[in-house]
């Protein structure tokens, strides 16, 4: 289990992470979501003991990152942001180096190598120089080094960044498979990424945690309203505004003219569907509804709300 208590990290005067606390349970895939520069990588760097916390504590299986750094490093497989690799080495030499660094002898290395090649799909590139590999293969090598010692905890910082859609799907599959038996923290600035892989997500913005929960929980908390986009003929703006008087819960967020027609965006709470009422009202007033489309608040909106707009309000 990873436990983070009031972690803060300053770079000079800039506070990158501001007193955050959370836990990651064993066997869980945690998505760490936030815009660029939100403090995701910084947090991960503290957990992997590349950086030391300015304030607060980080415990991995009740060991402290400052005092028991070596033991913690043994437990963690880490794929840093930008996937740094020794480009002048070939894949075999690189993995060999990783394995001896992790204390493997030749026999164990050979045994594990076969498994890792299978898992990461590295067959056929073992004797190529890393610099010659495509980005997707480099990413696989990065994952291979992270999982080589079969760590209990896997920390992946933006693992699909810069990959093409096919490669992204492959890497996601791989992460999901690995997540079956490991604790995984995966960071990303792309919501779909986290949605596709994680059990639970933490949204972080400007160094603060703004949301923490399963995807369903987050949806329930923040999805308050349904939005209706309409285009109506044979009416006026004022007439549309009168809708508010008829239906008190209704809110008109946008209204404009589109040639002869009025286009409007309406909002109402989820607990009641107003579409039928609006339709009947329009018929009674002899309006012609040209278009009506419903748009439920998506997780994307939640994320934007929390990170972009939420950030501005503070």
């Amino acid at each position, binding site marked *: 289990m990873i436990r983070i208590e009031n972690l803060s990290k300053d770079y000079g005067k800039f506070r990158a992470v501001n007193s955050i606390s959370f836990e990651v349970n064993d066997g869980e895939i945690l998505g760490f979501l936030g815009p660029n520069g939100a403090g995701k990588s910084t947090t991960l760097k503290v957990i992997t003991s590349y950086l030391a916390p300015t304030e607060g504590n980080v415990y991995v299986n009740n060991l402290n990152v400052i005092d028991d750094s070596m033991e913690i*490093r043994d437990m963690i497989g880490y794929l840093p942001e930008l996937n740094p690799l020794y480009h*002048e080495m070939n894949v075999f030499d690189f993995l060999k180096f990783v394995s001896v660094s992790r*204390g493997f002898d030749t026999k164990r290395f050979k045994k594990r190598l076969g498994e890792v090649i299978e898992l990461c799909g590295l067959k056929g590139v073992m004797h190529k120089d890393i610099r010659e590999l495509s980005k997707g293969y480099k990413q696989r090598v990065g994952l291979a080094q992270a999982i080589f010692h079969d760590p209990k905890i896997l920390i992946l910082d933006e693992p699909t960044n810069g990959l093409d859609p096919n490669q992204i799907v492959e890497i996601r599959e791989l992460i999901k498979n690995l997540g079956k038996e490991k604790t995984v923290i995966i960071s990303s600035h792309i919501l779909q990424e986290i949605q596709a892989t994680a059990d639970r997500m933490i949204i972080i913005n400007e160094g603060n945690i703004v949301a923490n929960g399963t995807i369903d929980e987050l949806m329930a908390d923040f999805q308050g309203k349904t939005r209706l986009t309409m285009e109506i003929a044979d009416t006026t703006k004022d007439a549309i505004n009168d809708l508010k008087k008829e239906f008190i819960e209704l809110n008109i967020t946008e209204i404009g003219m589109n040639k002869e027609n009025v286009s409007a965006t309406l909002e109402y709470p989820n607990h009641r569907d107003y579409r039928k009422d609006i339709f009947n009202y329009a018929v009674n007033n002899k309006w012609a509804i040209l278009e009506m489309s419903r748009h439920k608040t998506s997780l994307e909106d939640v994320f934007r709300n929390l990170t972009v707009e939420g950030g501005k309000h503070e």
Partner: protein
Amino acid sequence: MNKIAIIYKKELKNFFNSPVAYITLVVFLLIGGWFFTSTLFLINESDLRTLFQVIPIIYIFFIPAITMGLIAKERNDNTMEFLTTLPFDDKDIVIGKFLAALSLIGTALLFTLVHFITLTVIGTNLDVGALLSGYLGLFLVGGVYAAIGTFSSSVTNNQITAFIISFLIIFLFFMMDKILFFVPGFMTSFLQFMSIDYHLSNISRGVIDSRNLIYFGSVISFFLLISTRILEIRKWR
């Protein structure tokens, strides 16, 4: 395997995977060979003294070139983050890298033994003891310069900057003995004791004094220690 040995092997392999090692060895031999043979054919006489005088000068340019990438390149490529999150102590990394650079320098020195063989074949009367201690001296000076180079490489992520910094520090150490004439009297003995040449000349004469050995050992340790500290600072900055 010992942690330092793992880093050492990786770095040494890296030297020989890239042109660095070969260029260094070839140019080292070319320059050394030229100084050795020019007198041999000109006046039909030669000894290793000229070679021993010229090697410290070659060092000034070559050791910064060998060491400039040790840490700066890893920083620049972000591989330092990968390396320092593996179970290595920062000091393992510094020492392993330093020893790899020193081995390359040692190899270059070994190759100059070819001149020694030439001399024995020609049949000059050679003082083997003085020769061996001369080599020991050169090796130790190489160690000091390599430690300075490691330090310079740790303060920046730009290899060129690392080269210039180590060149300047090495040059300072190299000149210390030569500017004694210009410094006020009370400083001369201190500067002399700090200078590389003073200790090297003792050893080259065949006198291996513990004071000289301690000097080389402590300068090397000093620079490696601050390199390690600089690596550690990243955590707290």
